[in-house]
């Protein structure tokens, strides 16, 4: 095995591993933290379209940018927003115009669905009470009911989530693709375990022995990782746990510009995501 092939540039990673029209793309991070922005920007530069975008339980800039750039045919999500900074402008525009179908999920359907995907479980029965929200009625393809064979009750079940591709961020990785997270890793490990192909964006390469020194849940083994992209500062303007906080000024600038389509295009231009800037 040429292990050296694991560490790639973002351009090479996207080119080799992200076919046009990926059916189910999962993107990691939570809120304005650990969004794999360098990989997302590369998708935008290449105008690489995806069939369905699956977000983490709470998505932010990464999802809004992909949606704003018109690269997402439909989105499966439980939240896209910017917490105290405001609503997601591109998501709002696309969903309110009816252009973007929204497949409603809740965090339980995402986390248990990824668990099912990682474990080869055919579906996941959800705790009673979740059927009282309108999430399942609004997304009947994803939620069904079955009779619990132990109690005879009707219970809500969710489909497994098995992304074709996941883009996630971590602190560091080694040349074999072993990954080390810092701070909170949110649902990113689980997302990686459930996904057929995983690209991990990191701040830096790991020191020798650094990953082995962190046994347990803050790591991912390289056999789950197809490519590592080293991108220092690559989460900005979102935060990178273990490295830097989010850039509130830059996020507010995005939120202001992205209120209009023209402003959104300007944001892409100013931030190196014009189509002309593809350097393949």
């Amino acid at each position: 095995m040429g292990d050296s092939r694991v560490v790639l540039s973002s351009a090479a990673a996207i080119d080799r591993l992200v076919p046009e029209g990926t059916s189910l793309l999962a993107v990691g991070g939570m809120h304005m933290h650990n969004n794999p922005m360098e990989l997302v920007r590369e998708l935008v530069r290449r105008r690489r379209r995806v069939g369905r975008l699956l977000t983490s339980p709470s998505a932010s800039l990464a999802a809004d940018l992909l949606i704003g750039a018109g690269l997402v045919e439909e989105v499966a999500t439980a939240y896209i927003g910017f917490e105290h900074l405001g609503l997601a402008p591109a998501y709002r525009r696309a969903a309110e115009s009816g252009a973007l179908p929204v497949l409603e999920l809740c965090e339980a359907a995402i986390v248990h669905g990824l668990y099912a995907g990682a474990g080869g479980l055919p579906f996941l029965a959800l705790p009673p009470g979740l059927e009282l929200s309108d999430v399942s009625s609004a997304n009947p393809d994803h939620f069904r009911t079955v009779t619990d064979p132990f109690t005879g009750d009707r219970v809500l079940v969710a489909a497994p989530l098995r992304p074709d591709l996941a883009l996630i961020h971590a602190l560091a990785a080694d040349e074999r693709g072993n990954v080390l997270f810092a701070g909170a890793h949110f649902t990113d490990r689980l997302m990686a375990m459930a996904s057929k192909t995983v690209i991990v964006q990191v701040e830096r390469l790991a020191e020798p022995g650094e990953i082995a020194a962190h046994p347990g849940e803050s790591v991912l083994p390289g056999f789950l990782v197809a490519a590592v992209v080293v991108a220092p500062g690559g989460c900005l303007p979102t935060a990178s746990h273990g490295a830097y906080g989010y850039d509130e000024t830059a996020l507010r600038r995005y939120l202001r510009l992205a209120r209009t389509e023209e402003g959104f295009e300007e944001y892409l231009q100013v931030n190196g995501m014009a189509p002309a800037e593809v350097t393949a």
Partner: protein
Amino acid sequence: MSIAIAADYSIDELMAAVMARQLRPGEVAIMGAVSALPQAACRLAQLTTAPGLWFIAGGSGAVNPHLDPLVASSCDERLLDADVVLPLPDVILLEGRGDLIDVFFAGGLQIDAHGNCNLGPVGSWRRPKLRGPGGVGLPFASRAGRVVIYSQSHNRRTFVEHVDFVSGPGFRAGSGRLPGGGPSSIVTPLCTMDFDPETHLARLATLHPGITLEEVHEATGFTPILPANLETTPAPTPEELAILRRLDPAGLLRESARS
């Protein structure tokens, strides 16, 4: 609606104090996004009325974050300065257990008289007037011991007769299947409400200092039940304010007062 009840505390500080007083020693509370307010309330409660309270700060997985200082984002790395930090998938797993979470803090772009909350589509589901961000974990409100609803705005867009989409289930008309205890109170910039035990409909409990019944009616899209005695919400005590300001040197809870 701009509110300045008194010069010496902000409305967020009042709300934090009110929410803190609803918490009891040893309980387990959980909150989601945009949760500086319930976080401050929980930390305040730990230091006053509810020693031994546990609280889980949203997406961070932090259990009993020290809030040194209070931060705006529910996933801020500074929250991990906490008693214990759980992986987020474990938090989401345990939310479903059903016998662990005593208090679930919920909110919404729309909140209705049955305590249902909507953070999803406002208007039509397929082509909403306003596409809200989404409910994240609000469906788990159905399984908690009780649900404390809070909203930093109180107007007829937020407080409606029926939500357009149920993200967080409250007491729904005609359904008795709620496995948890359901909504127990609503805390807003104008008042507090509880729920009538018979009808499960929102009932006015206290008016904040300086707020009139008419102002609440005018700002509310449903008609809350009136209690036998409508009292005034006790203002934050000097002790409560001193604690809140120590937690919040940046003044996140005083932004509305400043702006």
